[in-house]
């Protein structure tokens, strides 16, 4: 029973990260290794705004998300766009950006763990399992935000524009869709989602400068398994991986959890590079 609930929470966080990651890839073909940094910045900004600036939690959270979204757009525009011709170039510059962010956080806050206050401090008992309120809230927020995003893409004009670009960038351009502006929008959404994950998870997971690393590895794994560029694929894979990890942690031991996602990535790449739902092969 615990597995069910804890697994859901873990999967929810992963889903938020993976969806953003796959979105920017699907639309702009950018493998953004700085994605984890958005997650980290979300958590740290929440910490700074509540602890140091004394703002109420909900306001701090909102501001964090907005600031990180803007940051994401800037990164895309200034650093990534000029290098878009080379896949490796984008990879390396996004990685370098992630390193700069990590160092900046390290220099500002030190390497020790920081504590972000939670939205809900109480404990709930769901079906006999003790769950911290914050975890449940995270699950709820994740569901709402991803659901909202999906709806946005499926049912609005802007969403269709995004879909169009991801399917055929050239045709979309001929149709008059302003791809550059769409890229920025998608980046903002992607970064914002990651920041939201950071804000939500910060209270109960660790907040330290290198926290961007693990999420990006997991996000990569999920997106590969689900299929690069496919949102439903990412969500499905996020749950699969989240549960796989949780099951392994409970049944065997926590040490094996890391391997689960990475092994899944490797196996998927070897046997079915397109992932479960991916439309295109490992081009």
């Amino acid at each position: 029973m615990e597995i069910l609930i804890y697994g859901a929470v873990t999967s929810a966080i992963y889903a938020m990260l993976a969806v953003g990651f796959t979105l920017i890839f699907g639309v702009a073909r950018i493998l953004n290794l700085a994605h984890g940094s958005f997650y980290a910045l979300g958590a740290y900004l929440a910490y700074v705004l509540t602890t140091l600036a004394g703002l109420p939690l909900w306001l701090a959270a909102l501001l964090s998300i907005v600031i990180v979204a803007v940051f994401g757009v800037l990164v895309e525009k200034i650093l990534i766009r000029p290098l878009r011709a080379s896949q490796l170039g984008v990879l390396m510059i996004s990685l370098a950006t992630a390193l700069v962010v990590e160092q900046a956080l390290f220099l500002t806050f030190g390497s020790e763990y920081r504590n972000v206050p939670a939205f809900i401090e109480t404990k709930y008992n769901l079906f006999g399992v003790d769950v911290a309120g914050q975890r449940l809230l995270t699950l709820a927020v994740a569901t709402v935000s991803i659901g909202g995003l999906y709806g946005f893409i499926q049912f609005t004009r802007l969403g269709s524009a995004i879909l169009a670009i991801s399917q055929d960038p050239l045709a979309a351009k001929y149709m008059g869709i302003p791809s550059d502006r769409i890229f920025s929008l998608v980046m903002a959404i992607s970064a914002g989602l990651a920041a939201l994950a950071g804000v939500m998870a910060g209270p109960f997971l660790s907040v330290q400068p290198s926290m961007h690393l693990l999420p990006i590895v997991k996000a990569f794994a999920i997106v590969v398994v689900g299929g690069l560029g496919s949102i439903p694929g990412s969500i499905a894979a996020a749950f699969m991986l989240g549960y796989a990890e949780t099951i392994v942690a409970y049944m065997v031991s926590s040490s094996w959890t890391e391997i689960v996602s990475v092994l899944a990535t490797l196996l998927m790449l070897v046997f079915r590079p397109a992932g479960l739902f991916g439309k295109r092969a490992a081009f």
Partner: protein
Amino acid sequence: MKAFKGLDTLSSIGGLVALLFLGVLPTLFTGKYLVGVLTVAAIYGIWAVSWDFMSGLTGRENFGHSLFIGVGAYAAGFLNVHFGLGPWWSLPASMLVAMVFAVVLGFPTLRLKGPYFALAMLSSAVIMQRLMLIFWEYTGGEEGIHDITPLIVNPLHYYWFVLAVLGGITLLLSWMARSRWGLILRAIRGDEATCLAAGLPITTYKIMSLVISAAFAGLGGALYAHYQLQVSPQLFAVVTSITIITMVYVGGMGTIFGAVGGALLLTVMTESLRNFGEWRLMVYSLLLIFILFFLPNGIIAPIWQKIRNLGRPS
């Protein structure tokens, strides 16, 4: 063909001069510090050169190079500490172990394109790192294997030994890169389909180049183990692979010798940045972005080109 030969002579003279300079350098300064830094730089050079041979030429960026380094180093550690073999056995053993891994991993992954291959190799390296931690009873876990005996106790002599190995490998791989082998690898980078149509055994070439790349990476790993006298899972880390890729990038992808320059430059830079204390890694990362942006062809190779062109009529 004459131009081709001419290339070699000038390059070989340049290489020889560089080698001599590097060999003499530490003797000019007292203290063991410089030798230490240069030894590590030379080992990174070996790793960078081995990476460039495979990935720089074929365009298949291997993000898991640290795996071959790590298995080579751990092989050295195991043989030395757990089986009590003399340190010189590590050298061929590490190469062998790395080559086996290359074959096993190469078959399924080399047919993947672009970032997928990179990702597959990255994942493999991460898995190996994890396995080292999980089976800590055998591998020493986070703290790894320590108490490895050194190959050559005198640091200066060891440095010359490593330098000689670096020179030898660079020479060998440069020669291979300029030979038919390199031509085919570059062709693979350009257009695989055409190569297949031309009847070239692409898979064999790809795997062979990965195996060669892995062998030298493993060798470097063993040299490292007998220098640090310790191996830890950190060797498998993504950071190691990325550092090496950066070095090759700085030196100039695909040029082989550029990788050596890149390794030396970056290692020395990292050490001298120690004075910046906490700011060291930050400065390094910013420098990286700068180089990526403004010097996409690297630093070393273009500079060498300019030097070469000095003596030529335009």
